[in-house]
Structures are given as structure tokens and as C-alpha cells.
């Protein structure tokens, strides 16, 4: 211990005064603030993602919880609804209810006479589920046959989406001038005292300009892409680019001629004029007058004062949507007549899967999930608790128990799809259990969550103080009596918490169920654990793959239901922990 005389040479004295030290300190504090900001940023990122995810699902799900129905009065006759002319339920079940609805629709739109239009009216407006509604109504009360019956008929999904505003953008503008209506053969010619049609024409020209710009962008993108490919592919691309450029040039030329009349083709936004109780679809538009075809007949051809007529623009061109202008006109007409209205879609919760998006529901998947969870719970709770009790209370410390422990830890991290492989090879192919059944799904999921439950149960058992055990042993209880009468009941809240969390995990698990065939399209609600079934997360997966927009909404809605169940289960676990948590 020498060299104590002076402070170390290298270290300079520092304090609040030195400018250099001050600067350095500022840098250090800036680094500190930055580091802290990264941490906050990380948490914020996770939170924002969560909010966006859930918000996105909720927004997407909303359309699935309502459905539009057409309130119509029909008169089912015996020869229509009964296959053999009696009111025997068997006969009534196979009746032609579509015919009744067809006649009802005919009465709503008596002016529809051509074959093509009638087919459109019959097929595009109502869901095939409407006939089921009528059938159930007649079956419930056969005395209604021959009497007028008012039913709420479910609309087809495209019509439903249009009314929900999801099919196309709508823009309504009230006519500013006095409108004159002239008939010209099949067509109607409209004029206005104000520049209503000039404005409409300008809108059309604007659409043309946008179309041209989009074509040019696409052409530019393809040009860039064409540089990377060779041969036939390149030629095809170049042809496509030339086409696009041509289209763009043509559209630009039309847009440039400001006053030239335009034909409203199917690839331009549609314009419908509501006038004199009828609907006219504009086919040609000029600066002062417009020409169109009648979609819903006009009551008369009187002149209409300003404000008494409207122009409706459907921003999505007819060629790009599943619902054409004629059906839109019918729907608008029915809406004006107050016959279509939005209702809560209880069907979503009470029916099974369907190919028709408007009729599909999650009941089958819910029951399938419930049955699967039942099997899982019945298997994994006793086995998991048994294993935990053995390992924690009875197991000697030897290589075997070591092996079991390592095993459990590793199983907890095995990818879930591997459990699916196990289910497929063992339960289906070796044991010959039925495919697609909740029984097998439950078995696989039980093995999947077993490690979770064992680990949680062991922790719960471990937290019971040894004094309890010793007290029981001290009054002459056997080791097992001490465990089963005293330790296990005290550990039960912890075990239940772990089990609920494990079950919540199992409820959301999808991949292993795909491999054991629970992905089949199943309309019927399963009745037992050996019936073919699907489960809620698998239903979500199946629907998410379908192209119809309404199925997308139903997917999101099914996700909300799944999340609701998970929140309830996790909430229950938290509640249980709070309620029974005990500090020793």
C-alpha cells in the first residue's frame, strides 16, 4: 500500500464548473433520454399495433352484425307449397317456396315483363334463405296457406352490401333547375334549366382523366418490371403497356374535349336520375341534356321543379361490381317505398356454415369448439394435475423424473403443427379414430396444453408451504392423504388459473386441427364428439380465404366472438387469482 500521496494523474478534477464536463454530462443525459425513448417507443409500438389490429377487426366486422330484409307479403297456395296437395309436414317440407316468392316479387314490380329481367329479379334480389324463412313460417302454421303472409325476406349478399354502402360509393346531388322529361322511343331525354348536366358531364370528364392517370401509372410500373424479364413474357408485357398507353391517350383526348357529349359506358361511374317516382339510368350525357333508359317506370312525364329530382352517382363503375344498375334501381325503389330495412343479424349466432355468405353463421363452429374443449378439459385436467402432483410431491429425484421434467419443458415449445402430425399419424391412421371429429381435436389439444397445465399446477403446489404438509403428517395422515386432503385443495385456485389459461390457448389453436381434418365444410351443427365438426378458429381460417366481401365481414365478426371468449376466460383467470391469491 504505497503511492497514496496524490490522486491519480490521469484523472482530471471535474465539477459543475468545467465546460467540458458540462458538455459531456449533457451528452450522457441525452443518451439516457434517447434510451428511455426507445423503451417507451417499443411499448407504444406494441400498443398501437394492438389498437390497430382490434380496431381493424371491429370495423371489418360491423357489416356482419346487421342484415337487410325485404318486408313482403306473399300468398302461398297449396299447389305451390305442397308436393302432393296435402298439408302433411313431409309434403310441405319439399314444396316450391321459391315460386311463392317469385310471384311476390312480380307483384312488387309488375312492369318487369321480359324474361331476362324477370330472371334477374328472381335471382339477384333475394337470398335463397328467404324461401327457408317462408317454409318455416308455413310449417309452423299450415293454416296460413292461401292467406296473405307477411315475411321478412333476407336479401342476397350483394344487395345487402349495396345497401350497407360497401358495394360502391354513392353521391347524391339535388337537381338545381327545372327538369323537362321527353320520351324518345325506349329512351328518355332530360333537360334542366340549370347547368346540372354540364356539371355531371364535367364529373365524367374528371373520371376519364383519373382513369388515364391510373393507366399511365400502371404502364410506368410495368415498364420498370419489363426491364427484368426477357422473351415471351417481355413481349406480352410490352403489348400490355402499349394497350394501356393507348387507352390512356384515348381517355385523355375525350377528357380534353370539354363540351363533347359522353357515352356512359359500364367502365365509367353510373348516374341514375330519380324523377317523377321513377329511375332513369343515363346512357349519354351532354352539356345541356342527358339521354337515358328507364329502370323503374316514371309515373308521368311532367316537368319537375328545382329540388324535386336527384342525380345519384355510383362511383364504382358497373363493370367492376357484382350488382348491376338495374338491381340497384330496384333496391333504391324498394328503399323509397320503405320496404327494406336493416335488422340485427341474429342468424349469425344461430345457424351453421353456408356457401351463401348472407346465411352463414358460427353456431356449428361454436358447438364444435365447445365439444373439442370439453374433451380437452376432461383429459388434460386430471392427467395434468396427476402428473404435477406426482412430480412435485412423490417423485424421487432420479434420472427418470429428470427426463420427464426436461420432456415437459421441451413439449411446451414444440410447434403446434407437429402435434397435428402426431394426431394424424397416431389417432387417425393408427387408432382409426374418426376424421374431423371433436374427439380427436380434443385429444390433440389436450396433449398440446398438458405441459402448460403441469407447469402451472406444479407452481401452485410448490407455493403451498411445507408446514401444511407437516401438520397433516404430524397427526398421522398418510402422505397421500396429506396431499389430497390439504395441499391439493389449497393449490386448486392456482391450478384452475393455469388450466383456464391453457384452455384459452387451446381455444385459439388452429394448425393441429387443420391436419386432423377439422377443416371440412360442414353445414350441420355437430351433436356429439364423434360427428364431423369444425372449430371457431378453423372457421375463421376457412372464411378468410373466401372472396365474397360479406364473408370477410363474417370472418372479422367470428374473430370478435373468439376474442370475446378469450377475454372472458382470461378475465376469469385474473379474477380467480385476485380472489384466492394467498400470501403465506
Amino acid at each position, binding site marked *: 500500500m504505497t503511492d497514496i500521496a496524490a490522486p491519480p494523474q490521469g484523472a482530471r478534477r471535474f465539477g459543475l464548473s468545467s465546460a467540458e464536463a458540462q458538455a459531456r454530462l449533457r451528452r450522457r443525459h441525452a443518451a439516457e433520454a434517447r434510451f*428511455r425513448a426507445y423503451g417507451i417507443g*417499443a411499448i407504444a*409500438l*406494441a400498443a398501437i399495433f394492438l389498437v390497430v389490429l382490434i380496431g*381493424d377487426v371491429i370495423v371489418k366486422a360491423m357489416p356482419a352484425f346487421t342484415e337487410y330484409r325485404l318486408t313482403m307479403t306473399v300468398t302461398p297456395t297449396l299447389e305451390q307449397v305442397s308436393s302432393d296437395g296435402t298439408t302433411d309436414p313431409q309434403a310441405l317440407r319439399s314444396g316450391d317456396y321459391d315460386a311463392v316468392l317469385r310471384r311476390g316479387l312480380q307483384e312488387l314490380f309488375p312492369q318487369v315483363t321480359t324474361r331476362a329481367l324477370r330472371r334477374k329479379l328472381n335471382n339477384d334480389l333475394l337470398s335463397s334463405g328467404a324461401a327457408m324463412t317462408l317454409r318455416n313460417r308455413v310449417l309452423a302454421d299450415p293454416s296460413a296457406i292461401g292467406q296473405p303472409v307477411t315475411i321478412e325476406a333476407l336479401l342476397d349478399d350483394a344487395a345487402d352490401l349495396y345497401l350497407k354502402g360497401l358495394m360502391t360509393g354513392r353521391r347524391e346531388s339535388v337537381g338545381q333547375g327545372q327538369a323537362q322529361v321527353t320520351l324518345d322511343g325506349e329512351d328518355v331525354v332530360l333537360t334542366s334549366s340549370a347547368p346540372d348536366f354540364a356539371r355531371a358531364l364535367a364529373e365524367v370528364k374528371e373520371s376519364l382523366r383519373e382513369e388515364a392517370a391510373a393507366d399511365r401509372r400502371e404502364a410506368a410500373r410495368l415498364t420498370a418490371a419489363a426491364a427484368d424479364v426477357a422473351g415471351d413474357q417481355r413481349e406480352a408485357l410490352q403489348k400490355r403497356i402499349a394497350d394501356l398507353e393507348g387507352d390512356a391517350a384515348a381517355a385523355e383526348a375525350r377528357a380534353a374535349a370539354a363540351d363533347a357529349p359522353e357515352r356512359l359506358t359500364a367502365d365509367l361511374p353510373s348516374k341514375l336520375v330519380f324523377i317523377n317516382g321513377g329511375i332513369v339510368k343515363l346512357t349519354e350525357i351532354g352539356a345541356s341534356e342527358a339521354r337515358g333508359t328507364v329502370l323503374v317506370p316514371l309515373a308521368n312525364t311532367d316537368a319537375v321543379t328545382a329540388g324535386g329530382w336527384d342525380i345519384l352517382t355510383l362511383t364504382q363503375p358497373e363493370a367492376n361490381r357484382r350488382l348491376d344498375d338495374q338491381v340497384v334501381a330496384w333496391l333504391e325503389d324498394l328503399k323509397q317505398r320503405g320496404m327494406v330495412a336493416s335488422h340485427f343479424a341474429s342468424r349469425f349466432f344461430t345457424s351453421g356454415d353456408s356457401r351463401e355468405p348472407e346465411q352463414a353463421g358460427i353456431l356449428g363452429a361454436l358447438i364444435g369448439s365447445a365439444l373439442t374443449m370439453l374433451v380437452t378439459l376432461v383429459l388434460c385436467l386430471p392427467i395434468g394435475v396427476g402428473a404435477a402432483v406426482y412430480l412435485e410431491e412423490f417423485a424421487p429425484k432420479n434420472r427418470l423424473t429428470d427426463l420427464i421434467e426436461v*420432456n415437459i419443458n421441451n413439449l411446451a415449445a414444440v*410447434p403446434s*403443427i407437429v402435434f397435428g402430425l402426431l394426431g394424424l399419424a397416431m389417432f387417425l391412421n393408427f387408432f382409426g379414430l374418426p376424421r374431423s371429429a371433436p374427439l380427436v381435436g380434443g385429444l390433440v389439444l389436450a396433449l398440446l396444453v398438458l405441459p402448460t397445465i403441469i407447469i402451472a399446477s406444479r407452481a401452485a403446489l410448490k407455493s403451498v408451504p411445507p408446514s401444511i404438509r407437516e401438520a397433516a403428517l404430524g397427526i398421522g395422515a398418510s402422505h397421500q392423504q396429506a396431499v389430497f386432503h390439504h395441499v391439493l385443495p389449497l393449490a386448486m385456485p392456482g391450478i384452475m388459473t393455469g388450466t383456464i389459461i391453457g384452455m384459452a390457448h387451446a381455444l385459439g389453436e388452429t394448425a393441429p386441427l387443420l391436419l386432423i381434418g377439422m377443416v371440412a365444410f360442414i353445414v350441420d351443427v355437430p351433436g356429439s364428439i364423434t360427428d364431423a365438426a369444425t372449430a371457431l378458429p378453423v372457421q375463421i381460417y376457412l372464411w378468410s380465404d373466401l372472396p365474397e366481401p360479406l364473408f370477410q365481414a363474417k370472418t372479422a365478426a367470428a374473430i370478435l366472438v373468439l376474442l370475446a371468449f378469450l377475454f372472458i376466460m382470461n378475465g376469469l383467470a385474473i379474477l380467480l387469482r385476485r380472489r384466492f391469491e394467498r400470501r403465506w
Partner: protein
Amino acid sequence: MVSLFFLLIVAVALAAFAFGRSRGRAFVGGGARLHSLPVYHGLFLATLCVLPMLVVLAAWTPVAPRYVEARTLAALPAELAPQTTLEKEGRLREARLVALGQFAGTPDAGTTVAAGAYAGARTEAEVTLLVLGLAGAAAGFVFGRRRLAPDFRARNSFEHVTKVVLIACSGVAILTTVGIVFSVLFETLRFFARYPWYDFLFGLQWSPQTAIRADQVGQSGTFGAVPLFAGTTLIMLIAMMVAGPVGLFAAIYMSEYATPRVRAVAKPVLEVLAGIPTVVFGFFAALTVAPFIKNVGESLGLSVASESALAAGLVMGVMIIPFVSSLSDDVINAVPQSLRDGSYGMGATRSETIKRVVLPAALPGIVSALMLAISRAVGETMIVVMAAGLAGNLTFNPLEAVTTVTVQIKTLLVGDQEFDSAKTLSAFALGFVLFFFTLALNIIALRIVRKYREQYD
């Protein structure tokens, strides 16, 4: 039938329990001094009756369907005997439906005969189950009844049985592992018997489509798995680039900075994120994130596949954030407070303490947390099934579509499949690779964690 058998088990158990207990009580009534409570006599007898029945059921379950199947096929007249697997399965399915009365239409002669045989064989199998089960129960009952006596140590015997049951419960974990290993191993070996393993592991082309007819071109399919490994790696790397830093910083903030109030908000956020099923993330990736990335990319003049690796990877990364953060949180908290005090005591700021003392000390634990996260990312299925592609492109461009091991397993095994084709078997080979890769990662990671824990215990 099986549910009926379960009811029978319950009934037998209750009866045996009641009988044993009443015997025990009778001993007491007779003035004898019992070694064990009457309840234990009942429990002892009930277990002896139930266990043989369960054994019978376990043995019957795999045997019975094979027996029924064999009998059904044997009943077919020789000229109708099925030639191919497909025909055989069709015949069996029809026979089953006819026997159950669910067949729509009129069955042909062969099916009718087979259906009769099917129904007969099924009845035989069911009767066999009942008879064997009851015989087992009776044997157990007779054996146990003879042992019941006042000085019989019923409790000890029952506890002995209980212990065996408990050991069996723990054994399920081992059985599961063995089951997994065997189910992937056998099929993998069969696959390698048809397709050389080195071509599988090192081949650069993946096109598992096998032709329906034997004379079609390329009917054998090519199973070079490198594009799948590359795709899996690409998506995993993207995911880890999100989950690694974000998860780690979240953990650092939670354990070193957060006030109890912030913690009360942030912790549930991470827990909720951890509790969201992967199918939901998949939906979000496929329907929201992928189109968003495509639009952004295209407005920047890039060509983006609609099933880009980027979308799947980003969402998977977010999914793994809570996993990384909770594991890292644990290891960071395991660093002793005295080290932090030492550093603060010298005038270090919090971030200096974290960067220079806490993180280096926690490094092994963090490395193992990241390894577990990688294993999670590699094994994740639903996000990639829904948001990644199917074609085995060998690329590391995150804007292109790639496919992964799990996607291919799912694609090859879902839907109609012939069980014996190379296409189906290749899925098991992929499962084999996946299982052992994740297993190795987990074992190493768990070992590191254990070492690390010991260091500070």
C-alpha cells in the same frame, strides 16, 4: 358404443365402490377393528374393476376398426375386390354409409354385401368389447373381494394404485414425445426410401405436385426443400428484426424504468397481445397488412407480391414481441440488484448501467430468449399459411412471395390425400426437420438459461 362403454365403466365403478364400502362397514358392525376406513375398501374394489375395463378399451380401439374393415372387404365377391387404395376406401365408405342408413341413392350389389358384412362385424366387435370389459371387471371384482378383510390394508393398496396412476399421468409427457418421434420418424424413413435424403435436404427445387395418371410428365415431383428452408429463414429473420429490438426494449423499459402506473397499462397490453390467437394475426396479415404494403410499395414504384414475405414476417414479429419481452424481463430481473447499486453508486446513469452492467450480465439469458423466439417463429403456422405464398421461390427479397416449411406441411396434408404417396410422406419429412430443429434450439436455450440461473442463485 364407446360412450355406452364409458357409462358402463361409471356404473361398475359405483357398484363396486358401494359394495366394498358396505363390506367395510359390515366389518365394523361385526365388532372388528378395521385397518382402513370403509371408504378405502370401496375405492380399492372400484379401482380393481375399472382398470381392466380401461385396458380392454385401450386395446380394442385400434384393433376393432381394422377387424371390421378386413371383414367388410373379405365379404366382397372376388370379381368386385378393390384393386386400388382409392377404390378400397370408396367401397368402405359406401358400406359404412349404407349400414348406417345414410347412403343417398341405391348402392350396387357389392356394396350391399359389404354393408351387411360391415354391420355384422361391427356388432361382433361391439359385443366383444362389452364381454371382455365385463369379464375384466368381474375378474377384478372377484380378486379384490377375496382380499377384503378387517385387517386388510385397503388404504395402502389403494394408495399404491393411485401412485401408479399418477406415475402414468407423468408418463403421458414421455409418451407424447415418443409418439411424435415415431409418427414423424416412420413416415420420414418411408419417404427417404423413395426419395434420396440428400436431394431432399439440399435440392433447390420444390414442386410436390404428383400427377394423377402415371403417364403424365413430372409425375414423381421434386422435393428439394432448400427453398422452403430459405423462405422460413427469411420470414423468421424479418420477424426477429421486429420482435428482437422491440421486445428487448419493452422488457428493459418494463423492468428498469416503468413506474407502477405505466406498468399497470403496459403489462396488460403485452399480455393481450400474447393471448391473441395466431389465426387472428394471420387474418390481419393477409387482409390488412399485405394489401397495405403492396399499395405503399407500388406507389413507390416497387413491384410487391400480394403475399409478400414482408407482411407475414412483420406480423409474426409483432406476435413474438410479448414472448421475447416476457422472457427477457425474467432474465433482466434475475440480475442482482447489487450490481445495479454498484453502478449507480459510481454515478452511472440508468442507461449506462443497463448497457454496460445489466445487459452484459443478462446476455446468456437474452440469447436463449431469442433462440426460443426463433424456434417459435420457425414453427408458427397460421400467419404464414394465411399470408405467405405457396410457390417455393428461392429468394431473399422480402417483397416477393416465399413459402415455408409449415405452410407446405399444411398444404400437403389438408384435403384429399393418398396416404402412401411421396407427396404426403414428404410432409412428414418436413415435420421431422421442423421438430428436431426446434427441439435442438429449445434444449440449447433451456440449458443456457439453467446455467445462467445457477450463476446468480
